[in-house]
């Protein structure tokens, strides 16, 4: 009862946010520049939340997330540009392709631990990028022209689905399995939890939503180039998750919103932009070393409906 009430509350909240922003767009209060920032924000939220399930929930330190984003971006772009498929189907294709890539990369690499896993995922992401550089079909290093199809509605819908799926997964029996892997892999093994399976599942789900984010990203800037998806992009996503607090979904969302606006406003100060950006990060890490939210969820703090998310 309580649970469905909370769900209803969140659904209404989500609808209200959408309606307000959409109304402001139609009323001309948000111009195309800010619309673009909003879409970027949504993409960042999706990336952060999809990496959160790998690092925050399952505790697997992956720094190759941009690779899966690239797979989603390219496959969806091929679907719309080469095959003329509608954008919504292209997003699904991008997500599936990224998920398959996640599965393929995950099965061998998730046997590694800690630093080794980080290096391996970084390597795989670079491999994915280099493959796109060398495939002429998608324009090679020069990139691929893509029509602008993303808008606030698609991006917002993507965010809602991502958050819905990942928070439900985290609170399910499977999510518990993943959390136990993060807490103590040996103990989880001894409890009969198939740790490799859960690591691969979390990794694949993360890759799928990185693919969704990539699809929307691809159709937002008229062109996609392999260099966009280099390891710096992976680090940007990692920063969002760490800044938000490892293990907190709402933290990832807040960090993504925060960082998007900081970098958007700093766009006016091109010379000092990276310095201020880095300073903000250093200050946050000094004063909030566990990230903005720690491992807490915003629902636990607001006591909105149900008493706290049980995802630690």
């Amino acid at each position, binding site marked *: 009862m309580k649970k469905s009430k909370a769900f209803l509350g969140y659904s209404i909240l989500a609808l209200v946010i959408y309606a307000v922003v959409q109304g402001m767009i139609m009323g001309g209060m948000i111009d195309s520049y800010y619309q673009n920032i909003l879409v970027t924000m949504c993409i960042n939220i999706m990336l952060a939340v999809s990496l959160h399930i790998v690092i925050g929930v399952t505790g697997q330190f992956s720094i190759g997330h941009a690779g899966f984003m690239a797979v989603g971006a390219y496959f969806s772009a091929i679907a719309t540009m080469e095959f003329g498929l509608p954008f919504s189907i292209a997003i699904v294709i991008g997500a599936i392709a990224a998920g398959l890539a996640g599965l393929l990369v995950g099965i061998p690499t998730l046997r590694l631990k800690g630093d080794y896993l980080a290096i391996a995922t970084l390597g795989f992401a670079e491999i994915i990028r280099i493959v796109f550089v060398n495939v002429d079909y998608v324009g090679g290093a020069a990139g691929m022209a893509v029509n602008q199809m993303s808008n606030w509605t698609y991006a917002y819908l993507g965010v809602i689905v991502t958050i819905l799926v990942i928070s439900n997964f985290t609170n399910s029996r499977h999510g*518990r399995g993943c959390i*136990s892997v993060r*807490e103590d892999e*040996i*103990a989880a*093994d*001894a409890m*009969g*939890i*198939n740790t490799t399976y859960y690591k691969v599942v979390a990794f694949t789900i993360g890759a799928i939503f990185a693919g969704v984010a990539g699809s929307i990203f691809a159709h937002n800037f008229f062109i996609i180039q392999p260099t966009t998806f280099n390891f710096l992009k992976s680090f940007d996503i990692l920063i969002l998750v760490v800044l938000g607090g490892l293990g907190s979904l709402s933290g990832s969302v807040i960090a993504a919103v925060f960082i998007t606006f900081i970098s958007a406003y700093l766009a006016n100060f091109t010379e000092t932009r990276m310095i201020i950006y880095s300073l903000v990060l250093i200050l946050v890490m000094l004063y909030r070393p566990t990230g903005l939210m720690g491992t807490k969820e915003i629902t636990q703090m607001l006591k909105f409906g149900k008493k706290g998310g049980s995802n630690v």
Partner: protein
Amino acid sequence: MLKVNNIDVFYGNIHALKGVSLEVNEGEIVTLIGANGAGKSTLLKTLSGLLKPKSGDITYQTKQIGGKPAQSIVKSGISQVPEGRRVFANMSVEENLELGAYLRKDRDGIKKDLANVFELFPRLNERRKQQSGTLSGGEQQMLAMGRALMAKPKLLLLDEPSMGLAPLIVKQIFEIIRMVNSQGTTVLLVEQNANMALSIADRAYVIETGKIVLSGTAKELQESEKVKEAYLGGV
């Protein structure tokens, strides 16, 4: 119930267990004692599926379990209390216990076993909502045991439950092991604290550098000159 026949286990090139054989009968407490690095934990890890034997076989009831994945071994009724407790530190006591019953589907049975665990360890009941990382070492050991019992094992593998605990707490823990055993769970206990272990065990094995060097009833071993000299602190 459990029969280990001539197994060899390697860590890379290191030959950790050399042709180890042992047997645990239903209802017994069997203890395996030995010094650091003798291969005690290696043997337990092999039994619970965390390591795979290179040769030899492990028979549990009538099934072959050597080299099977951990989750299928837990399902068949063997559960392990890992060395050093390894509770899920950021989860509450209750959540830890629930995870112990991860592979079970019978909600009523789980509820009953939870009550049983709280009866065995009243301390855990007092702290059921507390984060388990904040428990004392003894309480964490109790939690680790409770968690393993939640899987409703027929055979419980205990890896050094006395590690790092005060003598009084060790005594309590061993008392509980005996209680668990009397409720029908067979126990294989790995220990360095040979005195304590032999005092509650039915039979015992002594392992040295990867080989079983002695075996017999607990009483026999308690009186054996060799064991006295090596593990019980002189004659």
